[in-house]
């Protein structure tokens, strides 16, 4: 019953659909949990703390540790964010304040197309074009001259590596981060622009001051970009090299959680525990993604840049 004594039938008609969505989400979580239980019983939390992939016909010999994949996911996503940071801020500032008027709209449309482009398109381009390009122009020269630095210490044999995945992800998430930063920057009241220029600031100085005012939106944009990067599957799995490996070197191949799932699931059902191990990996991806995204959304909402 409502306050004034009538029943809001409309609300009760819609409510089941809402609850269905909540139920769906809860069911997903429940499925990941229950499907992960066998591996937890088999080896406990070692699934997350070790790097191993021992598949065997004999269940007692099976042992899985997805640390390499978690490491690779975080490593490549951090790389992506590091690439997206300067690009997305520059793009937002340039498009709003400095681009010639006729270029503004086309530039924004271009990034919107990038944000929506099917990820498999990035994948095929990454595997056949970007990886050879990076290997030839970046990895080989850096390895030849700077291999004493741990970051460059791995000999780039194929080019499939953390770096390739990080760069590809960076290209993919930049438009997305930039859209959030752009909206916040655009909505800065004009009076602050007037204030800083009236004090005799150059455009460089003015931009520096104005950008500081939207720091929360930048943080949120990059968090959400990180969330996208860590959840991306097919594009990454085509360029990361799919190797159980924990290396600081940018040129080493590796795994990410999602590419591990994509790669191993096909034959996982032959073994007793592998499916469960992959679900446990999915569970960790679920929580990392959820935490990062909720944080990003809350920051946006709190500082009034909510979408």
């Amino acid at each position, binding site marked *: 019953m409502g306050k004034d004594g009538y029943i809001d039938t409309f609300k009760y008609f819609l409510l089941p659909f809402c609850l269905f969505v909540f139920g769906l989400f809860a069911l997903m979580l429940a499925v990941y949990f229950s499907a992960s239980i066998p591996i937890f019983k088999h080896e406990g939390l070692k699934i997350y703390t070790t790097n191993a992939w021992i598949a065997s016909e004999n269940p007692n010999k099976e042992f899985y540790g997805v640390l390499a994949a978690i490491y690779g996911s975080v490593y490549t996503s951090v790389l992506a964010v590091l690439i997206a940071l300067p690009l997305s801020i520059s793009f937002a500032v340039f498009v709003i304040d400095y681009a010639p008027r006729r270029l503004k709209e086309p530039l924004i449309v271009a990034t919107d197309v990038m944000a929506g482009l099917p990820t498999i398109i990035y994948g095929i381009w990454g595997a056949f074009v970007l990886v050879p390009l990076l290997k030839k122009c970046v990895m080989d020269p850096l390895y030849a001259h700077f291999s004493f630095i741990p970051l460059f210490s791995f000999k780039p044999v194929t080019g499939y590596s953390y770096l390739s995945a990080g760069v590809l992800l960076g290209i993919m998430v930049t438009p997305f981060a930039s859209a959030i930063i752009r909206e916040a920057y655009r909505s800065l009241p004009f009076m602050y622009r007037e204030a800083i220029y009236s*004090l005799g600031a150059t455009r460089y100085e003015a931009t520096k001051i104005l950008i500081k005012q939207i720091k929360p939106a930048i943080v949120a944009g990059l968090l959400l970009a990180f969330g996208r990067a860590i959840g991306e599957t097919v594009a990454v799995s085509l360029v990361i090299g799919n190797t159980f490996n924990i290396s600081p070197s940018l040129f080493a191949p590796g795994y990410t959680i999602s590419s591990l799932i994509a790669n191993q699931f096909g034959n996982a059902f032959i073994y007793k525990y592998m499916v469960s191990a992959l679900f446990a990996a999915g569970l960790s991806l679920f929580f990392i993604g959820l935490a990062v995204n909720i944080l990003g959304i809350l920051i946006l909402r709190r500082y009034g840049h909510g979408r």
Partner: protein
Amino acid sequence: MILAEKDRKSEEDALEKMAKMRHAIETIDLNIYYGDHHVIKGVNLAIPEKVVFAIMGPSGCGKSTMLRAFNRLLELNESTRVEGDVKVFGKSIFKMNPIEVRRTVGMVFQHPNPFPHMSIYDNVALGLKLNKLVKDRKELDRIVEWALRKAALWEEVENKLHKPASALSGGQQQRLCIARVVAMKPKVILMDEPTSNLDPISTKKIEELIYELKKELTVVIVTHSPAQAARVSDYVAFLYLGKLVEVGSTVDMFENPKEKLTEEYLTGRMG
């Protein structure tokens, strides 16, 4: 109070005096377009040094737009176009770098706009730091205090200089904006309806400040209120639909307006 202190010379005397003075700002056939819209139509105006000069008129007459031409702030908006010339102390502002113009001609806005993410101190220090007007921290401290005293804000913020500016009241924020400008020691300060968003007590404080400021510099204040123009200004220009209707000493114009439009505006039949 301010009116009473003014010497009541004849109209001719006042205009003669105006002509003899060095001009802080002079406009020559100033035309401003906003897209296709002709906002300011052929204004010729000479603003003497060290006076308070009010530009009044009903809202939408182009006052604020014209004011922003004086420090080249209009350029922030791509769709505006300026024709004619504006001279600051005899020098065309279009032959100067906009940064130099804005250092000489400071501005206070309608909405108090200190940077909310910066401290009170940093807000005042901002222009000084940007323009590298100070040698060291000690000098900076000294000028910040001096400017805050000039803006009659020092006593109120002395103990919270490093608190964010957003913690101040609207009236205090506006005085902070005045301190921010004063700190750079400009020769002219433009004020765009500086009290229109403030309560009467804050308004009075700001008006007293304006009176103090003119001892050292020129204040050009835009207002839609004839009463405020009468209270604070020595000279006044009446702008209507982008055209300069009348200009002269405040006393004369209020006692004896020459144009019928002016009289209608002053007596409240318009605006």
